[in-house]
């Protein structure tokens, strides 16, 4: 098995059942097999206590824009659910309606409107409701964009010649509606980045618009996605074969097949894996291209060790995005549960035998009717 000179990885990492094989042109053992009935005599039924024991969440890096954390001990379906929710179901606000009063710039109304929609807005979506039909102060945020370009009189030769040459996201003026004035007094709504260029003007050109921002989710349009990226990768693992060591004269070449720092070479040409730097390995599979290293090494990934990387772009701090995704997930579970409980109550009302399916089934031709 792998050298464990500096054992930073727990021993359970070397359990072959947790490994996904990485080969030159394919991967193997991708799916998890730990289900009841798969391994005779083993119990793989759900146990919260066991899950709590094996689950490990550990934050690795945090900046004001991004976070990297490890989620160990969950199935891919769970990790993927959170990733998908962060991308497309955590709500934010974005400009949806644009009322153009005047636009004499060279950029067309619809193109400019699209650009406006993509501006991230710094308002906490938890303070807003989804707009059903009527715009209210609880569901709509109003901005004005009123910019006219003029020539600067007596401008110096090499300085700027025009005022309002660039229309920027910072030019959006918030127009408080109803209660909003007091609610947002301390933190007035604006773009998170005030330097996004929306249009360029020349003297005499003007843009006058009213913009309505509403709450939405990324699955409807990516402008409502709160993240720049939310992704995960599996923790890499390199297993050296003790019965076929790397020849000392090739040790440097072997080390150069991996990301810097991952493989250590001792003065006498012995190679070992530096487990502290293992997560940096890009898994380029370069080592598998060389005949002389055949059988010396196996490349693996750990199936239940997810390295998440989330970049926030919008009102949420990066560290709050993952908890928000859990909240959305729990909301989904709650709504399905409510419906399932109602179904259970219905089927019990109907007595033991009569099929509860009959009333709710598809119509006569077997098609499912769309609403």
């Amino acid at each position, binding site marked *: 098995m792998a050298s464990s000179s500096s054992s930073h990885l727990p021993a359970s990492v070397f359990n072959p059942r947790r490994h996904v094989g990485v080969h030159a042109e394919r991967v193997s053992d991708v799916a998890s097999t730990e289900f009841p009935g798969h391994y005779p005599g083993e119990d793989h*039924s759900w146990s919260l206590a066991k899950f709590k024991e094996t689950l490990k*969440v550990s934050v*690795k890096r945090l900046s004001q824009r991004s976070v990297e954390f490890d989620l160990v001990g969950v199935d891919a379906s769970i990790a993927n659910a959170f990733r998908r929710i962060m991308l497309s179901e955590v709500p934010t606000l974005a400009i949806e309606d644009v009322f153009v009063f005047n636009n004499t710039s060279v950029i067309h109304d619809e193109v400019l409107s699209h650009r406006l929609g993509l501006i991230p807005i710094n308002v906490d979506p938890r303070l807003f409701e989804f707009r059903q039909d009527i715009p209210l102060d609880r569901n709509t945020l109003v901005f004005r964009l009123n910019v006219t370009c003029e020539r600067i009189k007596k401008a110096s030769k090499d300085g700027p010649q025009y005022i309002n040459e660039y229309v920027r996201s910072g030019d959006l003026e918030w127009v408080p509606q109803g209660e909003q004035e007091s609610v947002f007094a301390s933190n007035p709504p604006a773009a998170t980045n005030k330097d996004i260029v929306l249009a360029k003007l020349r003297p005499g050109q003007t843009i006058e618009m009213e913009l309505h921002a509403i709450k939405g989710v990324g699955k409807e349009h990516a402008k409502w996605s709160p993240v720049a990226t939310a992704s995960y990768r599996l923790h890499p693992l390199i297993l050296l074969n003790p019965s076929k060591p790397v020849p000392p004269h090739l040790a440097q070449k072997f080390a150069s097949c991996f990301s810097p720092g991952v493989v250590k070479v001792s003065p006498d040409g012995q190679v070992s894996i530096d487990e502290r730097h293992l997560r940096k390995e890009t898994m380029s599979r370069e080592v598998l291209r060389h005949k002389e290293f055949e059988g010396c090494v196996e490349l693996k990934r750990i199936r239940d060790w997810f390295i998440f990387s989330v970049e926030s772009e919008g009102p949420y701090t990066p560290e709050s995005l993952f*908890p928000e995704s859990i909240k959305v*997930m729990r909301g989904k579970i709650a709504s*399905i549960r409510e419906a*399932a409980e109602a179904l259970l109550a219905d089927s019990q009302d109907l007595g033991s035998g009569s099929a*509860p399916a009959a009333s709710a089934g598809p119509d006569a031709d077997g098609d499912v009717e769309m609403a």
Partner: protein
Amino acid sequence: MAQATPKIRILQGAEPDLSAATYQIHDESHTIGNALRWMIMKNPKVEFCGYSAPHPSENHINMRIQMYDGLSSLTALLEALKNLDDLCVTIDEAYTHSMQNDQYERWDEKS
């Protein structure tokens, strides 16, 4: 517009005792489909569980559950939902704990 689509309905062809049934869950996708399928399969009383998103323009998923011993698939579904919620709470707690107590690298990212 017809009346509101129910969140869940049981498709035609289910066993009368619900020991095998297909549940059509409205307004859900692979996000909940795959996670729920995994949790249902963790139940040893479940013979089979699978789901599909039949078509991109249909806003629902179909979840098929078949049980051993004539047990109710609806009970298994409810149990899995509860377990999935417990799992979410556990992950949330672990994440919050790590965020507050662990040593991690803080760095300044230029935007």
